[in-house]
C-alpha cells in the first residue's frame, strides 16, 4: 500500500477524464464512468508506476463508493418530499401510478419469466422501473423543453418515482438483506422494514420543530459536521438492525427534508454527492469483469426493448389523460426511458445481499443502453413520429386500395395527422 495516494489519484484522473468526455459530448457522465471502470481493473496492464489494476486500492474505492451512495440517497431523501408530491395534485399521482405500475409489472414479469428467483426478480423490477432524475433533467434542459406542456408531467412523474423509489428501496432492502426466499418470508421481512420506516418518519415529523431549532446553526463549519455526523451514525445504526446503510441515509434525508433547513443541506450535499457519486459509478464498473458482459448481453437488450415498449404505452396513456399531442406523449416516454444512478443503486443492494452475480453486468449493460438511447430518442421524437405516421398512412392506403380498389384521397389521410399533433 505504498502508492495508495498515487493509485487513488490515478482513479480520480480516469474519473475526471470520463466526466470531461461526457461533458464534451454533451451526454450524461454515468455510462462513461461505468465503462471506464469496466475497462480498467484486475485484467488491465500496469505501466511503470501507473497501476491500472486497482488491486490494492479496490477496497478504498469501494468504500468511497459507499459514501457516494449515502450522499446520493441522502439527497434523494431531501428531494423526495411527500408533502410536495401531494400538493402537486391528483393528476401527478394518477399519471405516476400508471407509469410506475406498467413498467414495474413488465420488469417483474420479465425477471420472473427469465427464470430468476423472487428476490432477484424484485431487484430487476426495481431497476427497470425508476428513471434517472439526472438524465431526465439534462434532456429537458439541453433540448430546451422546459416550456413544453409535457415537461410538467415528466417532472411530476420523476418526483413520483423518487418517492416510489424511497419506499421500494426500504422494502426491498429488508427483503434482500434478511435472506428471505419464500413469499411469506418476503412479506414479513418487507413488513418489518416498512413498519420501521413508517415509524421513523412519523417520529421524524413529530420532532421537526425540535430539529428546526437544533439545526439553526450559523457557522457553516459546525453545520456540515453535525449533519454529516448524523448521516453516518444513522446509516451505521440501520446496518446493525439489518436495514441497509443506504436506507438510513435515505430516511435521514426524508426527515431533514421536512425541516426549514432542507435547502441549505441540499446545497451543502451537492458537491459531496457529485464527487463520491462519481467514484461510486466508477467503482461499480470496476467490480464488473468485462468477460461476464457477454453472458448478460441478450438479457440486457431484451429488458431494454421491453422497457421501451413499456414507456411508450405508459406515455401514450398518460399523454391522452393530460391531453398532450402524440409528439408530446412520445417526448414523455423517451425522456423517462433514461435509466442511471438509481438502477445502479438498486442493483448494489443485490451485491450487499449476495444475490446472483449476473445482476451486476446485466444492470451495467441495461443502464448503458438506455442512458444512451433515451436522449437520442427524445431528441428525434418528432422524426420518429413522422416516420410512424408515414408508415401508418401507407398501410392504411394499401388497405383502402385492397378494399375499395381505388386511389385514396391524400387530403383525407393527412388530416388526422395534423389533429394528432395537436395543431
Amino acid at each position: 500500500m505504498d502508492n495508495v495516494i498515487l493509485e487513488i489519484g490515478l482513479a480520480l484522473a480516469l474519473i475526471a477524464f470520463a466526466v470531461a468526455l461526457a461533458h464534451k459530448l454533451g451526454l450524461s457522465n454515468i455510462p462513461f464512468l461505468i465503462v471506464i471502470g469496466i475497462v480498467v481493473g484486475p485484467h488491465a496492464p500496469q505501466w511503470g508506476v501507473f497501476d491500472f489494476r486497482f488491486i490494492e486500492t479496490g477496497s478504498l474505492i469501494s468504500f468511497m463508493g459507499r459514501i457516494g451512495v449515502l450522499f446520493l440517497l441522502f439527497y434523494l431523501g431531501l428531494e423526495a418530499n411527500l408533502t410536495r408530491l401531494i400538493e402537486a395534485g391528483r393528476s401527478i399521482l394518477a399519471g405516476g401510478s400508471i407509469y410506475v405500475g406498467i413498467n414495474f409489472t413488465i420488469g417483474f414479469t420479465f425477471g420472473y419469466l427469465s427464470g430468476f428467483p423472487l428476490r432477484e426478480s424484485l431487484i430487476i423490477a426495481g431497476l427497470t422501473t425508476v428513471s434517472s432524475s439526472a438524465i431526465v433533467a439534462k434532456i429537458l434542459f439541453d433540448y430546451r423543453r422546459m416550456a413544453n406542456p409535457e415537461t410538467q408531467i415528466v417532472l411530476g412523474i420523476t418526483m413520483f418515482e423518487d418517492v416510489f423509489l424511497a419506499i421500494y428501496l426500504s422494502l426491498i432492502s429488508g427483503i434482500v438483506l434478511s435472506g428471505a426466499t419464500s413469499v411469506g418470508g418476503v412479506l414479513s421481512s418487507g413488513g418489518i422494514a416498512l413498519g420501521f420506516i413508517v415509524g421513523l418518519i412519523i417520529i421524524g415529523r413529530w420532532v421537526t420543530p425540535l430539529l428546526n431549532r437544533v439545526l439553526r446553526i450559523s457557522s457553516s463549519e459546525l453545520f456540515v459536521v453535525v449533519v454529516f455526523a448524523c448521516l453516518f451514525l444513522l446509516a451505521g445504526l440501520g446496518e446493525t438492525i439489518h436495514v441497509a446503510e443506504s436506507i438510513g441515509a435515505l430516511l435521514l434525508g426524508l426527515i431533514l427534508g421536512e425541516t426549514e433547513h432542507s435547502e441549505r443541506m441540499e446545497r451543502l450535499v451537492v458537491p459531496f454527492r457529485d464527487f463520491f457519486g462519481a467514484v461510486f459509478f466508477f467503482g461499480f464498473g470496476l467490480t464488473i469483469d468485462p468477460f461476464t458482459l457477454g453472458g448478460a448481453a441478450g438479457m440486457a437488450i431484451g429488458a431494454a426493448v421491453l422497457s421501451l415498449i413499456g414507456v411508450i404505452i405508459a406515455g401514450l396513456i398518460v399523454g391522452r389523460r393530460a391531453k398532450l399531442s402524440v409528439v408530446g406523449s412520445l417526448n414523455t416516454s423517451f425522456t423517462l426511458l433514461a435509466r442511471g444512478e438509481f438502477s445502479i443503486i438498486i442493483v448494489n443492494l443485490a451485491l450487499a445481499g449476495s444475490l446472483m452475480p449476473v445482476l451486476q453486468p446485466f444492470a451495467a449493460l441495461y443502464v448503458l443502453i438506455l442512458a444512451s438511447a433515451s436522449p437520442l430518442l427524445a431528441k428525434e421524437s418528432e422524426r420518429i413520429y413522422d416516420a410512424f405516421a408515414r408508415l401508418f398512412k401507407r398501410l392504411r392506403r394499401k388497405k383502402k386500395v385492397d378494399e375499395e380498389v381505388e386511389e385514396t384521397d391524400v387530403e383525407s389521410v393527412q388530416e388526422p395527422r395534423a389533429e394528432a399533433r395537436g395543431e
Partner: protein
Amino acid sequence: MSTISEVFLPGVGRKFQVETLTGDRLVIVIHDDGTRELYHFTRRNMDRPASVLRLTDGEARQIAGIVGGLTYVPRNLPMAEVILGDLVLEWFTIERGAACIGQTIRELGVRTRTGASIVSIIEPDQTTRTNPEADTVLNEGATLIAAGDRRTINALKRLLIEGRVE
C-alpha cells in the same frame, strides 16, 4: 391586459406563461438555482420556440428592472405600475387641471386620507426628489411614484385629480 398562468415544475422551479396582446406567447421558467429561461413562441408556431434565452439570476434582475421601467419610465405614458405581491408601485403624472396642483403633500393629507404614500417625485425638469418632505409642493407635469396596495393607490389618484377621497 395579457393573461398569465403559473405552473409548479417539480424539482426545477416555476413556469409562467404569458399570452401577449400581440398573440405571441412568452414562457418564463425560473429555476430554483436562479437560472431563468425565456421561451418566445410566435403565433405561427406554438410548438417550437422561435428563441430561447438563458439568464443568470443577476442578469434576470437587471433586465427585470429595465423592462419594468424602474430605471426609465416611458415618457409618453400617463401612468405605469409595478406589482410586487400586494405592494403596487405606480408612476403617475400630474396633468393640467388636477386638483392637487400647488398644494403640499401635508395639505392634501396623502398618507392620512388614502393610506398610500408618495415615495418619489420626478419634476418636469427631470430633477428627482426621493422621499419628498411633507411640505413639498406638487407641480403640474411632475411624475409621482406612489407605493401602496391597489385600493389605497386608487384613493390617492382620486385625491390628486379630484381633490377628494370618496
